[in-house]
Structure formats: C-alpha cells, structure tokens
C-alpha cells in the first residue's frame, strides 16, 4: 500500500511537464479566443466573450471549410486504409523478394511534407508536369489536376495518401506479424478458405489495431495543412479550403482572437471524431462474429 502511494509521486514530473506544455498554452489560447485582438491595433484589445465562436457558427465560409475538411479526411483515410491493408496482407506472404521491398514502401514517410508537396506540384503541373506528359502520350489529355475544383480535392487526397499509406501499412503489418499462426493452421485443417481465414480470424484479431491506425490518421488528416497549402493554397475558389487553411489566414492577418477560436473549434471537432470512432471501436459485438 505504501509502495503504491509512493509510486503515484513518480507520476508528478510527467504530469507537471504535460501541464506545462499542453494545458497552459491551451488555456491561454482559450482566453485569447474570448478577445477581439487584431495585431495591427495593439491598443484596442476588447473582451468579446463567445462572439468569435458565434460568428464562426454563422460564417458560411467556415461551415464550408468544415465540410471540405471532412470530405478530405474521409477520402484520405479510406484510401490509405484500404491500400495500407492490401499492402500489409501482400507483404505478410512468404515471398522473400517482397520483404526486400519494404524499405521502398516506407520511403514517402521520410519525406518532409512541404518537400513532398512541392515535388507533387511539379508532377501535377498542367504543361510541364511528368504526369500529364504520359497521360497526354496515352491520349488521355492534360487534366487540370490543381485547377479543377473536384480534381484538386482528389489530388490533395491522393498526395496525402501517398505520404501516409506507409504508416497505415506499417501499423497493420506489425499487427499481422504477431497473429498466432496456430489459428490459421487449425482453420486450414478445418478446410477454411483464404477469405474465410481473413474474415473470421484476421479481421477480428486486427480490429483494434486497424481502428487505432484509422483513429490516428483521421486526427492527423483533419489537421493537415502543409500539403494543401503548397499544392492549392485552398483553391481553386474554396474547393480545398480546409479549417486549417482558414486558421492560417486568420493568424496571418493578425486576428488572434478569431484564429484561436478556429483552433479550439478544430480541437473540439477532432475530439468529437475521436469519441465517435472510439464508440465504434468499443461497441459490444455479437458473439461468434
């Protein structure tokens, strides 16, 4: 008992550190969000209560940005999950040459997002980009990847997928590697097909890992900024204008209260998304799958 009580004190440094780097800035940010503070008018800082939040609720541009962010997040996570899962299943097969390719698969993960996005901007360039060069050679024309509203959203989603599929692959692959082989052997002896093994053994055992990967990626994608900023800057029009781009604009113009309010609303939305996903993960499942 005494040891248990003493043990709690060992948590203190970690809690103090967490408080200092997480909570203090968060509270400060919340405090600023209650003010009308425009950096070009440093002597005219006024307490406005929840006005910054109420304005966001009525701002069609902000509401549209939430929709765009949600579309981008959903699209990116679905693509990343499906391809990541497919690659993990492929690389879990006993082919030696595949294992040697694992490093190559992981490469995009090591590329700095801004550098990767700049590279893709060149690739997507309508006239001198390599992608359109080959598409045109195949008679498919020169699609306006970044200037058509729909294609622009697809393009940023694909680039995000390119960068983070390795993460999804890595997490799911690690999960696959530790699954007990005896279960699959027993299923094979009982005459289970490959699909049945996947459906009734792999999926249930990997569910938590897969949902965890989806959760982490969804939080990350919702906060994505670099790729979108470099590739489209939120355009054409407002087709790719996410909440983060709006936040950047507000900070850039020196509207500190509004920018912090957008940041905290984003935090709330991400927390809501996490809560919904966690509910999904932890909901009771019927026995026997």
């Amino acid at each position, binding site marked *: 008992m005494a040891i248990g009580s003493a043990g709690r004190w060992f948590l203190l440094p970690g809690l103090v550190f967490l408080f200092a780097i997480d909570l203090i800035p968060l509270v400060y940010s919340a405090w600023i969000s209650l003010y009308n503070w425009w*950096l070009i008018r440093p002597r005219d800082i006024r307490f406005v209560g929840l006005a910054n939040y109420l304005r966001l609720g009525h701002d069609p541009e902000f509401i549209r940005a939430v929709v765009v962010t949600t579309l981008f997040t959903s699209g990116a996570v679905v693509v990343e999950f499906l391809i990541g899962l497919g690659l993990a299943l492929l690389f879990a097969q006993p082919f030696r040459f595949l294992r040697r390719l694992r490093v190559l698969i992981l490469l995009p993960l090591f590329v700095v997002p801004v550098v990767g996005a700049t590279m893709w901007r060149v690739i997507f360039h309508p006239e001198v980009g390599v992608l359109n060069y080959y598409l045109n050679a195949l008679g498919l024309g020169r699609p306006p990847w970044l200037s058509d509203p729909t294609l622009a959203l697809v393009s940023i989603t694909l680039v995000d997928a390119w960068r983070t599929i390795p993460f999804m692959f890595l997490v799911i692959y690690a999960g696959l590697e530790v699954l007990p082989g005896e279960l699959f052997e027993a299923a094979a002896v009982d005459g289970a097909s490959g699909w049945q093994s996947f459906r009734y053994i792999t999926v249930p055992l990997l569910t938590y890992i897969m949902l965890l990967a989806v959760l982490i990626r969804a939080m990350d994608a919702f906060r994505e900024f670099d790729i979108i900023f470099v590739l489209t800057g939120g355009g054409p*029009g407002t087709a790719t204008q996410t909440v983060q781009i709006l936040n950047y604009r507000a*900070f850039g113009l020196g509207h500190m209260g509004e920018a912090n309010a957008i940041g905290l609303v984003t935090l709330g939305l991400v927390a809501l998304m996490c809560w919904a996903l966690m509910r999904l993960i932890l909901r009771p499942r019927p026995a026997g799958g």
Partner: protein
Amino acid sequence: MTRTRIVATVLVILALTLSLGMPAFSQGKSLTLSMLAGYKEDVLRANLPEFEKKTGIKVVVDAAPFGDLYKKQLLSLSTGGGRYDVLFMDEPWVPPFSEFLLPLTERMKTLDVADFIPTTVASGAFQGTQYAIPVDPNVQLLVYRKDLFEAKGLKPPATWDELLAAAKALHDPAKEKYGIAVTASSDIQTALYMLLAQWSYGAELVEGGRGSLNSAAGRKGGEVFLELLKFTPPNVRSYNFADVNKAIQLGQAAMAIQWASGAKPMEDKTKSTVAGKLGYTRVPKAVRQTPMRGVWTIAIAKNSANQDAAWQFATWLSGKEFGQFAVTYPSATSAIHSPRVSVLKDPSTRAALPYAEALLDSLQITKERPRLREYADIQENLRVTTGKLTAGELTLDAALKEIDAGTNRILGK
C-alpha cells in the same frame, strides 16, 4: 609549457581575427533585417559584403517567403519583440505597420529626394509622414511579342478593346499558342488583374470609406477580365506569377500583363526562347490609365536600438550604387530595380533592361492601392472572392457584392 603555448596561440588567432578579419564588426554595430526570400534576397546578399566592408555594420538577414513575410513582420512589430531593426516591406504594409515604424520625414531631407521617382516616394508615406524609403519599384506592364505583332500587322494595344482583339487574333490553341498569359487561380495576382481592369473603367475598391466595386464600372472591368480568360493558356486557373513568366519564356503566349520585376528573366537568353523579341508598354486603358504600383520599401522599427545604422543601411539599399549593381545581377524569376531616375535613365541600364523606359514611364502615372491600415484584410477578401469567381463558385454580380460586403465588414461599415 604546452598549455601556455596553446593559450598563446589561441589568443594570437583571436587578436588577428578581430584586428584583420572583422575590423568593423568590432565596433559592435549589427542590424537584423527582415527580408523577402528568393531572388531579391540573392541580389542583396551578393552586394551586402560591400556595405559591411564600407560601413562596418554587420547585417543579419532573416528571409521569409512572400506568404509569410507580412505575418512575421506584423508579429514582431506589434508585440514589441524588437526582433528586426530594418524591414523590407511591400508598400501596402506601410499603413498597418506605421505606428510601429520610425518616422523618416526629417531624415529624408538629407537625401537627394529629387532623384527618386515621385510616386515611389509616396509608397513609403502614410497620412503625411514618411515611414519607408523606396528600394524596388514595381508596376504592371503589358508585355508583347514584337515579332508576332509585326507578322499579323498589329499595333501594341492601348485599350482593353484593342487588347481583347489582339489576344483573339493571336490565339491559336491547336498550335498551343495563346493570346495572353494572366493568372486565374486563387493567387493574389488574379485579384489584382481584375482590379486593374476595373480601375481602368473608373471603379474603385474603396471609395468614401466603403467598398465600391459593385458598380457599372466595376462590372465592366470584371467582364473584360473574364473575357480575356478565353484567350489564355488552358490551365491559367492554376497559374501564379512564375507561370505567367514561363508562358512568355516558352513562347506559348503572345502577350502578358506582368509586374516589371518579372520582365528581366524574360530577357535572359538562357531562360527564355523569346529574349530580344519582346516589347513593353503601358497596361491598357479604358476611361483612364491605371498601372498598379507595387513598390518594395525599407523601413526602420521604432524600437530599434540601432536607428542610425539602420538609416545608413536603408539609404544604401535605396541608393544609386546598389541600384546600378541590381541592374546587372542575373535573375531567375524576379528582379530588383532602382527607384532612382538617374539609374533608370542611365545608358547602361537602358542597354541591359529593354523595358527600363516602359518601367519609368509607367511609374510616372502609376496608381496606388488604397492606403488603409486594414488593406491587407481587404486585399485578402478580394483574393478569395476573385478566386471563387474564376473557379465558377460565384457569378460576377455575386462576387462584386461579396467583395464590397467583405470590405465594408472589415472597415466596420
């Protein structure tokens, strides 16, 4: 014994370094400059050792890309951080930053002000006080292919109607040749192109303290701008400043409306297939001629502890010597020019820059954007809404209403 030798050697090296290597810096003068990153920064850095050698003032350059420069300067100045002594700033930033900048009206009297192009001096002033000195004057020009115009028997267009007619005549998409290159993306240049056309027809972005683009003149200018987009390369909806240059350099576009700073790379034979084939003239007019002014200036932070050294640096940067150096410095996308009449009229400048005459001519009649503290927000609203217009999210009428509504909201009207 050995330790004594080592200490002695170190002391000798230190003494030599201080007495020979950096004689001037020993005076302790050091400035921090907030600078635009890229080719303008390159020109500066290439000539900075000369200034440091001559004055003994060390200049630490903190460069940021255009999109971040305003934010960094605003944050540093408004929070009183004192990070920067001198700031290289775009002229629309002078009004919002004015209360954090050192007034230079008195100091300006020590300069040969008559040698500056008058409109460039105005770019550094706000409400009757001078806060910045011009360094790099910029103005929109009409660039055209002399060879193509001659082949078609066309004159350089002087009006928007003539511009549209010439663009149509020279537009041949089947051969990947296009009438004119401008941007139509969410880039700020798109908004400024449309504003240029609207100004020409007599509209104003802000008039009487209110947004006033939603007028007959504003609509006409907007229509002309949208009409022009029929004769552009197919992907101008993703174009930026550099892409407009590229369309000219690759010989794809017969004309472009471009800032003068973009002209130098068009004349670089190593980067341009049409160097020597280009003509430069004023942007088209309608009821008036309104080439837009965009001067890069240098200002001193009010809380700088090195105001005299900062003034020395600012006068050097806006001086003839640096201006002359910048004329010959190679440039890939954007050049620095001089605000000095004597430099722009110098025969060597005229020989090096085929557009120098057009630059000087347009700067004499140039029009400034609204001199308001809130202008950065107003321009951002204009950029976003024009982007919605060119992306097809809004009609012209709806866009003009939205621009004015945004401007009025920003101005508290």
